[in-house]
């Protein structure tokens, strides 16, 4: 009789543990989804403002074309080309805004102040969103590698999470501009 009770108790405990782990994994997948949505939103925002600046006529024609091409490609890139296209947009932004003079040109145009601020915010937030996303991916992967999770297939049909790898280094001139625009003088 006692054996039966013991077996029952142990099975209940195992079931609780499995259900708790499944819940934990579920929460991690939800976190990845939210982080991915946030990253998509930030990338889209950056591409849009880059495209807007490229077509506004405040930059020289060569810079405008480089920026337009990269922003356009980033917006339309399919999933498997996305990381490359977004990295290329980062490089284009760095090339175009290598000098502070270009940033000043944008700011001096009518309504340019707002555009410049939006660009600064966008290039600052893409790396943030990407780090949060990849952090969530790492946490989920760590749990999914557990033996229990693999044996009992607790992850269900959720695809194995992949990190988003890209070059997201912001242009140096914009960094300085950000420190000045939000500094105590304003």
């Amino acid at each position, binding site marked *: 009789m006692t054996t039966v009770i013991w077996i029952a108790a142990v099975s209940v405990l195992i079931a609780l543990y499995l259900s708790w782990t499944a819940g*934990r994994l579920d929460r991690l997948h939800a976190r990845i989804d939210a982080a991915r949505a946030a990253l998509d939103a930030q990338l889209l925002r950056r591409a849009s403002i880059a495209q807007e600046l490229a077509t506004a006529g405040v930059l020289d024609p060569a810079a405008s074309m480089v920026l337009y091409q990269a922003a356009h490609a980033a917006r339309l890139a399919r999933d498997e080309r996305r990381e490359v296209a977004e990295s290329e947009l980062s490089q284009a932004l760095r090339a175009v805004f290598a000098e502070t003079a270009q940033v000043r040109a944008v700011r001096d145009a009518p309504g340019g102040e707002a555009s410049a601020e939006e660009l600064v*915010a966008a290039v600052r937030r893409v790396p943030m969103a990407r780090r949060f996303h990849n*952090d969530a991916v790492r946490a989920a992967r760590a749990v999914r590698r557990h033996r229990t999770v693999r044996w009992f297939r607790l992850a269900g049909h959720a695809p194995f999470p992949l990190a988003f790898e890209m070059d997201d280094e912001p242009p140096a001139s914009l960094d300085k501009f*950000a420190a000045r625009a939000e500094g105590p003088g304003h």
Partner: protein
Amino acid sequence: MRIGIVCPYSWDVPGGVQFHVRDLAEHLIRRGHDVSVLAPADDDTPLPPYVVSAGRAVPVPYNGSVARLNFGFLSAARVRRWVHDGDFQVLHIHEPAAPSLALLTCWAARGPIVGTFHTSNPRSRAMIAAYPILQPALEKISARIAVSEYARRTLVEHLGGDAVVIPNGVDGGVFADAEPKAEWQGGTIGFVGRIDEPRKGLPVLMRALPRILAARPDTRLLVAGRGDEKEAVAALPREMRDRVEFLGMVSDEDKARLLRSVDLYVAPNTGGESFGIILVEAMSAGAPVLASDLDAFAQVLDGGTAGELFPNEDADALAAAAVRLLGDPARLAELRERGSEHVRRFDWSTVGADILAVYETVTAGAEAVAPDDRAGLLGRLGFSRD
């Protein structure tokens, strides 16, 4: 935005994390946000209107020193109630890896949680043992912030994952606008920090002082901070002791005036620093900085361009650098200017905007914060309490 901030350490005990939380909360409130801070405090301590007490913190030995921590059913219940009543859009918890309120909040809540890691403690055995318990709680943090590149590195080594670096904020205006005090001017070196805490490095500075005085006999050393003054000067030749002035514990206002007055600020700390807020304060006040080359300090000083660095614990190098700087007004002026330029990134307006950007990134499209009913066994079996 409705923001809930959790401070793990007692509100009535002064400390870096507490000051950071206070300044952050006040900055966000000024920007028009709705902020509530949950912090341990004695029930009879007067608290600002935005602080909610989580009960008294209990002193327990932890990790080699006595820490004041919150745990147990009562604290957990208060955390749950605060999360439930606050109806926050985002929770910002500080020092989540310490066994305290922040960790309890991680258990009790779900939704967008931001965590700031302040210290860069070496990995403790308790942390390794608690890893299976810690990890599920820390997994709930959707965005991690580290206060320096150094803190981020230790975080990545110990817990894995990644974090964005947002430095601690300083209200630069308070320091830049402070009135210099005439009696603290004229060939003065400043030091702020606990006298009897060797890690703050006063002994190194005392070893260097005879050489500095030999080259520049008019130099005075102003020391602000608690501790035994007699013991501090014991190693110094008797005739040099009157060149050291002890100011004791100074008010925030006097600290700003001191930093504004001195010709050179020296930070000889020998370790245990993850950020170095005092350097930012000194630079905001326009004081040229000479600091030991700890990782954290080197980063705050932009690798040595915003202030000078000397090899850690090397009193001779410290003396040589101090003598050279005090005899070169042009270099001091240059450091003043570079420092003031450099500290803008630590001003609350910049730091606050970055923290808000983090909040916006994690709340976009996410649900609001709610008590996590799944956390408890009872909730799991359908006996949810709320």
